[in-house]
């Protein structure tokens, strides 16, 4: 190869290397975002788990109250009304608590959307890296393959929080909307 050919080949490689550099920079930027998102999943599951454990603690306390009331009923007719009221209250509170546990399980839907977001991010990174590799070895590029997140619809910003702020904001917008609509 002549010196001239070698220089031309080098000039041809430079844009390819530039594109590869850009791809690597873009994909590197996605990694911290994926890490933050996975951290959100951990936080959400922990928050929901603690919430459920707190409810279970309260339920255990109520079962003890009901058991005490049943014990008093077995001992004799004294304080029957009071004991029945205690049992009735414990049952009503337990029903409410079981609802609270069900509500905390919404974490499953929310974290599955967060994980789908991470999965999508990883798939994007994989595609970009394959693209970069394909530029180095045009004939050797592996097929992209099916994306695991293709059939999933998700909200990448889904979050599990005990705060009512987002609902209050939505309510305020709806209120304004309806007011404007009625005027």
């Amino acid at each position, binding site marked *: 190869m002549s010196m001239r050919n070698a220089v031309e080949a080098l000039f041809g490689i430079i844009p390819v290397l530039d594109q590869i550099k850009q791809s690597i920079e873009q994909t590197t930027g996605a990694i911290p975002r994926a890490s933050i998102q996975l951290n959100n999943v951990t936080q959400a599951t922990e928050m929901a788990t603690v919430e459920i454990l707190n409810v279970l603690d309260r339920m255990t306390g109520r079962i003890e109250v009901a058991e005490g009331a049943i014990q008093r009923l077995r001992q004799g007719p004294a304080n029957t009304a009071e004991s029945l009221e205690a049992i009735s209250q414990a049952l009503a509170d337990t029903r409410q608590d079981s609802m609270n546990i069900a509500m905390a399980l*919404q974490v499953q839907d929310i974290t599955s959307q967060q994980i789908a977001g991470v999965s999508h991010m990883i798939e994007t990174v994989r595609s970009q890296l394959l693209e970069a590799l394909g530029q180095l070895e045009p004939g050797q590029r592996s097929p992209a393959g099916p994306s695991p997140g293709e059939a*999933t*619809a998700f909200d990448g910003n889904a979050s599990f929080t005990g705060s009512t702020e987002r609902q209050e904001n939505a309510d305020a917008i709806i209120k304004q909307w309806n007011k404007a609509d009625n005027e």
Partner: protein
Amino acid sequence: MGATKFLVVDDSLTMRRIVVNTLKTLGFSAIVEAADGKDAMTKLMSEGADFLITDWNMPEMNGLELTKWVRGNEEFAELPILMVTTRGNKEDVIDAMKMRVNNYIVKPFTAQGLKEKIDAILKSSNGKPA
């Protein structure tokens, strides 16, 4: 009130179970489920409903597209629609209102929150779209 027939649309089985169980606790027993917008269209046409509770992010047809279809359909145009979604941005709420949902709940919601929204829609003027 208990005779109201609900169509609950969500691609998450967990969420459908949570919403359906909450509705049953609130005294509603007529409930149909659908896994996405297309499934909901089929169920609406075959079984009908008095009240639609729908998620936003779903495969095949999302909740916003479903709402658009419902509002454009003469038979179901006045159907009360409650959007239940993780999307809580201002733009999302506005987009949903533009599609004329009746109300909007951001996940995670409480049983009381769901009850209040349903009551408000049912008590409003014939549940007409906003």
